[in-house]
């Protein structure tokens, strides 16, 4: 199994501090490129500026949509003799009026063995995820932001002729849709 790989091609969060937050998910691992609410802060001592990530839900609004700019690739040296390019999708944010956030941390993989954790021994970004109960960084996509992500970041719906990747209730991943989310 591989995890999503995200590249922030051009995002407002590169220049605006307030669009970046420290976050944590206490129920699941969160891949880079996954989306969530940051509705409340952690009440744990020492985590005064850490926000808690919760899954997108219809009741809270799902108005986060990206339009497909084009199919591209990411160069990930997997050691194959043939192509070492992974299909990826360039997406432009067209709506985030529901104030959802997206995970994006530097891909330093943590290898977990039993209760032990080891960092820095695996450079492959496809093995990177933001582990449950660990603080990671998130940014709030703004209209006009451009990101690129691999297929692992987008849910089970086939791309087909769909041209939008949208927030979906009950899952952290975006999913393909024919139109932007209306509500």
């Amino acid at each position, binding site marked *: 199994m591989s995890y999503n*790989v995200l*590249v*922030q*091609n*051009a995002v407002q969060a*590169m220049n605006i501090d307030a669009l970046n937050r420290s976050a944590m998910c206490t129920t699941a691992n969160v891949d880079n490129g996954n989306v969530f609410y940051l509705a409340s802060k952690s009440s744990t001592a020492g985590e005064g500026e850490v926000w808690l990530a919760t899954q997108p839900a219809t009741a809270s609004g799902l108005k986060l949509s990206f339009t497909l700019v084009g199919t591209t690739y*990411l*160069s*990930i*040296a*997997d*050691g*194959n*003799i*043939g*192509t*070492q*390019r992974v299909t990826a999708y360039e997406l432009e944010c067209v709506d985030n009026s529901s104030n959802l956030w997206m995970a994006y941390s530097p*891909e330093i993989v943590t290898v977990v063995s039993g209760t032990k954790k080891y960092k820095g*021994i*695996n*450079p*492959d*970004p*496809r093995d990177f995820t933001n582990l449950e109960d660990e603080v990671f960084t998130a940014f709030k996509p703004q209209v006009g932001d*451009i990101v690129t992500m691999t297929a692992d970041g987008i849910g089970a719906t086939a791309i087909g002729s769909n041209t939008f990747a949208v927030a979906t209730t009950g899952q952290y991943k975006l999913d393909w849709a024919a139109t932007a989310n209306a509500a």
Partner: protein
Amino acid sequence: MKIPSNVIAFAGDKVKIYEQFKDYFNHYHKKGSFDETVSLSEKENKINIAVKEEIARLSNLPTVDGIAPEVLATSPMYSWATFAVIGAMVDAILPDAIIDSVGLYTNVLTGGYGDSFSIDIKPRDLFVVSKAGKGKRTSEVHKQFEGQVTIVPEFHDITVQVALYKVLAGKENLAEFAMKAAKSLEAQMTVDAYNCFNTAMEALDNAGDDLLRVAGYSQSTFVELAQKVTAWNGGNKSIAVATQLALQNVLPNDANYRYDLDSDYAKIGYVKSFAGTDLMVLPQISDYKNPFKLALDDNNIYIISPSAPKLINLALEGSTISITNGLYDNANLTQNTTMKKSYGLAVGTSSIAAIITLS
């Protein structure tokens, strides 16, 4: 002469004998570097004496002169030391022997017991450049990512046996069986490395821009793939490698050629250089499990850049272990030697290569 670190650790200040053995091995096979000023038979005599001394040293016997071999064989320390030395000698030559047979496409790595191996791979792509407007600070951010291939070696064993009665009658010899077991391990490693390479090559894309596998030889596809492999390997010149049978197919499309009896084609069976690309034979090896099949596919021509990073990684874990029980340990008066070598293989490269499959 380079001796592996585990052999140096084993031999201490007696490393010279392992250097001598490696020199003898290279001389015997007429490959690699060896001292040409000393004859092979002279080296053999010297090594026989040196090996006896080394075994005596390890088994803490003051001397072995004048003691009958069957008596020496009942000494547990002597028996242990004999096979410890055989194991170390195998380790002294194995990496080089393997490199000779599969070194064109295989990177041989050595490590200690308990090690796993990881090979970090750098991306081979360059970044795509875009035209840009004049009043804009940055363009879209592009990134590339390293990958990693890991190898966890597995044990490969072989056990050989002799009957005591046949040994006493001079009909069987455990040391001979043990050396053959070591040779079998080397042969299996060679076949495994080739199979790993061939499987990866036969799975390459055969259509579109990614095309690296073409069915059927033609001069134009040969040249196209050769220049593609050279260009994408950063200018490292490609060569064509294959068995002799496969290489004889590398000829001009226009069949209006003539060759005389002094030509390369008549003498060695293939053209040594064709259309700017050198050709090199992969010596066939026997598939000793299936008489009299051959292990290398005679229908494949591989185009690789030997000076670019190798395509296959062969990881050797620790030293060769040889376990030999005592002369009278088995109830049926037999004696066993087990050779254990731990190794693993994986494709892991930043290079590209191509293949032409002949019909």
